[in-house]
């Protein structure tokens, strides 16, 4: 169950030529640590924004420079803040960096599948963010970017009533971006309630030019994945609106409820293509692209879009290098594309991907997905059958997922494939000796994984990953039988479940630099 942050790119991204130059100037000043120049630039941008009542360039500046997982910029931002400890501009910048770090450390899974370590990291970064937001707002309480950050922070329950802050933000900057911050912060799976949302739409939306309560309710319904009458009403209302900024919702409806409309294919392609430029959310984009290729039968279009998306991702990673979620998406799709086209991954490609690994760990050390990337790199280097080499990564993956049944299941499935080949169930190119070795190594981990899976699913039978039937339900059953009949792994078979759960392993970020080669 992934939680998607509503991205605020919609407006933040629409860049004008002047904004581009300001961003470049600011980046240069930051790189050279010319903090007085930075102060000057931000004072100008802020003055401009207040004067024109247009906060887009200022927000864009913060977004492009500071809402990034970039250790180098982080260090320099800290230095700027130390040099100008009273500056609302520097404090806001630092708060934005800490917010970004907080969400990356936490990861995107539901709380019950998020480890205590990830939560500790999340909260400690949020405390830092909170501190700097306070600094920023001490002298200029209505500084809009600081209010944006305060709203984001309020979403997590760290400070104040989100609705109060949201109202202040809209009063200070009555524009569409503020609405987006508001809707994001009031999502019901964070600290908002349905009532807060309705209040927002009814009492605040009309203050924003070219916006109204109906538009707000449409966006709220989708942001909260509403079901039933609210969603039906939202879709009905959407049919009568033509605001381009609703395209991100329109494409979802064209792919589901409206998919048989005569213009559906055209609209989907138009919006999907355009979203690359103004609203690119890599995971969502790639999933949709896969659906367009297969279900919507648009292979050429999808191939073109995928290529463009991979290029954008690569470009983004350059300025956002410790963003392990971007890196993970890039890793997964690079591997998939290569396997699909050539049936294998070239050592060169794997080396390029492996080079991202130390950066991924910086903020991703509590992320199950990052440990899965590590496991795949190891499997590539040592061979998929070398279970022992992969196990430390798996232990971390499972532990940091809070023993999420679908993660345990995926681990068990990997082990079962090894078992199946090693016991002659499927063909293999390995030598008899390798097969015997794999057979020897895989049994006890498989028994252990099966026991954990059983226990987790017994505790929560309706969890995702537990209730899979049909062909997909067969291998856990086989694993259970292997576990029951195992003579060798009596420890794993009979031990209490407390003794079997995984504990994390310390793995050096440089592990792949030390000469383990395929």
């Amino acid at each position, binding site marked *: 169950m992934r939680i998607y942050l509503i991205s605020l790119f919609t407006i933040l991204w629409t860049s004008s030529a002047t904004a581009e130059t300001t961003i470049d100037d600011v980046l240069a000043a930051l790189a050279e640590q010319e903090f007085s120049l930075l102060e000057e630039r931000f004072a100008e941008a802020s003055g401009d924004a207040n004067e024109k009542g247009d906060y887009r360039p200022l927000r864009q500046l913060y977004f492009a420079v500071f809402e990034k997982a970039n250790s180098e910029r982080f260090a320099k931002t800290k230095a700027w803040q130390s040099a100008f400890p009273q500056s609302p501009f520097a404090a806001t910048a630092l708060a934005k960096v800490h917010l970004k770090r907080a969400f990356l450390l936490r990861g995107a899974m539901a709380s019950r599948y998020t480890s205590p370590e990830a939560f500790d990291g999340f909260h400690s970064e949020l405390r830092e963010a909170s501190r700097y937001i306070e600094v920023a707002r001490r002298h200029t309480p209505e500084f809009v970017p600081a209010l944006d950050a305060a709203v984001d922070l309020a979403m997590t329950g760290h400070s104040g009533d989100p609705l109060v802050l949201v109202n202040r933000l809209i009063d200070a900057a009555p524009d569409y971006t503020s609405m987006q911050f508001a809707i994001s912060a009031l999502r019901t799976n964070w600290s908002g309630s349905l009532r807060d949302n309705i209040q927002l739409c009814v009492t605040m939306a009309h203050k924003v030019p070219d916006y109204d309560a109906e538009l707000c309710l449409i966006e709220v319904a989708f942001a909260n994945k509403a079901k039933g009458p609210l969603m039906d009403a939202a879709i009905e209302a959407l049919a009568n609106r033509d605001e381009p900024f609703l395209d991100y919702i329109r494409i979802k409806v064209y792919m589901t409820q409206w998919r048989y409309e005569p213009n559906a294919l055209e609209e989907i392609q138009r919006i999907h293509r355009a979203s690359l430029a103004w609203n690119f959310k890599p995971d969502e984009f790639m999933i949709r692209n896969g659906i367009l290729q297969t279900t919507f039968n*648009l292979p050429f*279009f999808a*191939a073109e879009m995928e290529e463009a998306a991979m290029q954008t991702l690569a470009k983004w990673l350059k300025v956002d290098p410790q963003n392990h979620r971007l890196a993970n998406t890039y890793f997964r799709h690079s591997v998939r594309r290569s396997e699909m*086209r050539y049936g294998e991954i070239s050592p060169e490609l794997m080396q390029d991907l492996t080079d991202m690994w130390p950066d991924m760990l910086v903020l991703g050390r509590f992320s199950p997905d990052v440990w899965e990337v590590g496991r795949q790199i190891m499997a590539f280097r040592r061979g998929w059958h070398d279970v022992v080499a992969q196990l430390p990564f798996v232990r971390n993956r499972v532990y940091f997922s809070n023993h999420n049944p679908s993660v345990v299941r995926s681990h068990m499935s990997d082990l079962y494939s090894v078992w199946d080949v090693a016991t002659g169930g499927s063909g293999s190119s390995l030598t008899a000796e390798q097969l015997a070795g794999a057979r020897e190594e895989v049994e006890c981990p498989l028994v252990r994984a099966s026991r954990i899976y059983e226990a987790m699913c017994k505790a929560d039978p309706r969890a995702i990953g537990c209730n899979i039937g049909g062909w997909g339900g067969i291998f856990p059953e086989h694993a259970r039988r292997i576990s029951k009949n195992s003579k060798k792994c009596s420890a794993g078979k009979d031990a209490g479940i407390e003794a079997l759960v995984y504990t994390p392993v310390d793995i050096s970020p440089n592990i792949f630099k030390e000469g383990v080669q395929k």
Partner: protein
Amino acid sequence: MKLWTLTFALVLALPWNAAFATDIDEVRTLLLNGDVDRLDATMSELSKDTEASRIHLYREISDTLFRSSHPTYLATLADWLEQKPSSGTALSANAWAAINNVYLTGSPYGSGFEMPNLHEFQQRWIQSRQRAFELAEQALRTDQRNISAIDAWLFMQRFKPAKGETTHVATRLMSIAPNRQSIRNLVATNVGRAQVRGRAAIDTCHSYANLAQDYNRTLCMIEAAFEHILENDLLDQAGKELAKIDDPRLDTVRFVAENIQGGEKDATALFRLHRSTLARRVEPGEYIGTAQRVAWLTDTPDYVETAHDELSGQLDQWLRDDPLNPRYLLHKSYVLQQRSEYAAARKVWKQALVHGWPDLNLWIIGAMTEFHDENLSEGAKYIEVAAAAAGNKIELLSVHQMFDNAIKKSHSPPQDGVLCLRARIALLSKGLCDVYGQMAGSICRPDHPVFKSVTDTISLVPKNCPRLSETPVSELTFSSTLTKEVAGTLVNIAAE
């Protein structure tokens, strides 16, 4: 025919013929004559009769006469419903006609009840499915004990958007018609819409099978396992049970079992089992597909030819009540073409177009006839339609291959338009291989003959069609409306 088969057929046939006041021929005549009043009276009487053989007859009539593409039958059925809108039997008969329309508008390649994969055909399919839902619902509401309405309703419940509660209808069905057919229908519905298919089969068989006199749980699980290809352990178990039972009713599933699990390699026995699947209406493509496997299993390549002949004989019988079934007609036209009866093949082909125009195979057959008559440009037109109907699927490579062969064999030199069409199909084929790569299977490997013919064509593109080499692949795709347009110039295609 083996003696016991004959005996079995006689034993089944005798009591019916003796007892029946109504038979299928009488209803057929009423449909042909459009005699709505007598039709309504006859069917109403039949629908109230709970005698086992009469229930069987009602089912047979629904399945062969109402679930039909016969224009006259359909006109009478529509007329009947218009004149007697609250007649339960008229409603259920029309529900079956609507169900057949779901089949006719469905994907030309699967079982017939799957959504077409091309976007432009999907809405039409959804509408016909909706119509069938509504008629079945209405029929059941009007007469809750009408067996044909219950069957139609259960049939439609296999489709995802319905998924209403079926237990109460199942219970009623078992109180009216506690027999094998009823249970098989229930299994098909419950398995078809279940997540855990094996569990659904077990539940259904255990709840109902012992209520039927001619059935039991074991038989039920055997049929369920092989008709719906359940999970492996259930197939294993069913295979073991099946080996212990000697019952000709199980021949069809025995064939499936042999086909999946192997074992029986006695050619004659396997041929007989395979032939037995013709006892019910089957999809020609599926029958020939299994014939190919039988031929391979028994190492008798000639068997495929035999199967074609036997199927053709059977098809004429099925076409009597289902004369516009595009798949039967496609097969028939193919066989005629193989026998070099081109004029007859073309006639049948045109009939097949009425409903079958979205089917890519049909256009290939049409093109083949034209190529045989040396009409290269007319054939090319059909090839273009076939390419459009292939809709960016990997099958496009076969279209190219076939076209390429025809051009090479042709005695007259091809026109530029023909060469450019071949080039366009080749470029699209190559594009598909670039996208799908390994997923497309061996056909996209450089050394595969089909792919080699594609690259050969492409090497000629700069010479033959220089303009094409500068166009991005995504702009080379064929118009999605082409198929329908061309079909419309050849026949009156079925109204939507």
